[in-house]
């Protein structure tokens, strides 16, 4: 019998068993893990409810806080943009970097505006200018002036540097057109010369010539048109100081210039004619063209709008500063 029964490893003694807890239905259910993880204590129901409630309350508070913060941010942004578009004038020294292109300060104020430290950014074009030459001018100095020009001069009031009433300018305007065509029929029914006569300004500033200049332009015809304008203004406004501003340059890659066929060589020829004419008729001449050119002889991108022909807002103080200096010399 003993041969049939294998001996125990402990030498036939009564086997000793480790004490293993007997799993009851209850203990198996509450043990939490079949891998022997420790048993988790069950939360009492009131505690569970309180926890859920607290989470819900926190969520609700977060929602309210988020809504209030979002609203405040939104209104702050709206106020900021409103403030920009209705900037109030101030006196004293201003930097054009802060006043251009949004501020309307220059129009009503007696401010001396400077672009000396300008680092203006054109909001939508993404073009950032480098520091520009000093462009200090007295906005009040131009309160009795009239600016006659093309679309570039519409920017004088477009950017709020000069009051609308002091500008007779139109898209596509020419020296000939300024004598016979209305610059804005909804504003004034007559030509720029008619308007000058009606206002008798103490200063008249002209910048015309870009429109109509191309490789086909007959410079004698160009001069004839310009001469007619100057003579008409001298006749109608004999007490006015008149200053002719040179035709501004174009950039090397000006899309507008490539369309119209205008080049800097043509512009330079036109400016020689204007300068000569001014000397002959005793009219002041301001060479803005040279001021706006870069080292390669093109319209500096620090001053040029995206089409390489029109002005950035920050360019107008440079124009006004130069014109004021020329007029004051007389």
């Amino acid at each position, binding site marked *: 019998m003993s041969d049939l029964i294998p001996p125990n490893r402990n030498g036939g003694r009564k086997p000793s068993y480790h004490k293993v807890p007997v799993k009851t239905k209850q203990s198996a259910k509450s043990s939490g893990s079949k891998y022997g993880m420790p048993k988790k204590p069950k939360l009492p129901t009131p505690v569970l409810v309180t926890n859920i409630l607290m989470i819900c309350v926190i969520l*609700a508070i977060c929602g309210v806080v988020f809504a209030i913060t*979002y609203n405040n941010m939104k209104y702050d942004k709206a106020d900021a943009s409103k403030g920009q578009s209705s900037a109030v004038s101030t006196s004293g020294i201003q930097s054009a970097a802060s006043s251009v292109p949004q501020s309307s300060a220059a129009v009503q104020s007696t401010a001396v505006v400077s672009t000396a430290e300008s680092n203006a950014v054109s909001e939508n074009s993404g073009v950032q200018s480098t520091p520009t030459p000093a462009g200090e001018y007295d906005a009040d100095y131009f309160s009795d002036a009239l600016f006659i020009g093309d679309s570039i001069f519409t920017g004088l009031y477009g950017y709020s540097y000069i009051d609308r009433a002091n500008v007779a300018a139109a898209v596509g305007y020419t020296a000939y057109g300024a004598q016979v065509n209305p610059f804005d029929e909804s504003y004034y029914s007559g030509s720029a010369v008619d308007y000058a006569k009606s206002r008798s300004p103490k200063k008249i500033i002209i910048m015309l010539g870009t429109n109509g200049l191309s490789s086909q332009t007959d410079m004698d015809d160009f001069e004839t048109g310009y001469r007619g304008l100057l003579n008409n203004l001298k006749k109608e406004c004999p007490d006015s100081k008149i200053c002719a501003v040179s035709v501004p340059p174009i950039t090397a890659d000006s899309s507008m210039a490539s369309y119209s066929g205008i080049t800097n060589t043509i512009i330079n020829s036109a400016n020689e004619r204007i300068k000569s004419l001014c000397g002959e008729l005793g009219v002041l001449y301001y060479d803005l063209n040279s001021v706006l050119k870069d080292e390669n002889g093109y319209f500096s991108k620090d001053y040029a*709008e995206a089409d390489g022909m029109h002005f950035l807002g920050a360019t107008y103080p440079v124009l006004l500063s130069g014109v004021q200096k020329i007029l004051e010399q007389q």
Partner: protein
Amino acid sequence: MKKKIAALLAAVALCASFTGCKGESGKSGSVVESSSKTAAEKAEALKAAVPFVDADNNEFESRSVTEDQLKDTLGIDSADVTEFAVYICPAGAIPDEFGIFVAKDTDAAKRIESTLTKRKDQRYDSFIKEGYKPKEASKFEDSFVETNGNTVIYAVCGDNSKAKELLK
């Protein structure tokens, strides 16, 4: 029973949190409908959606017109307007501009519509008919001046249908 109460309270708290997201009187936030936006908000949205770009893809600055400039720039009497927002190209290089006006009454709305229509026609003549920038002609093709009650909207820009959608 306790579970049901807890679930009910949780649901109530969750609803309260979503109500908070709606904001004050529904003026702002993601649930605000287009019609409840102010003129400035609509114009700003359009400014962001349709930048002032010419036919050669040059982007120009846009600038809002202030109340002081309304008469001189657009020929509109500010006394006729209770709320407005207008953007123009201040450089005068492209014909792009748009705006929304809430007039004080229907007669004022008619005056505003008439003034804007005349201005739009004049700018078409200057920019396109007289050959200044004929490449911008497409901007006038579906340009519009529309009046609905006391509200007048108008646009000449690169995407006039989008402008109409956002200004309405």
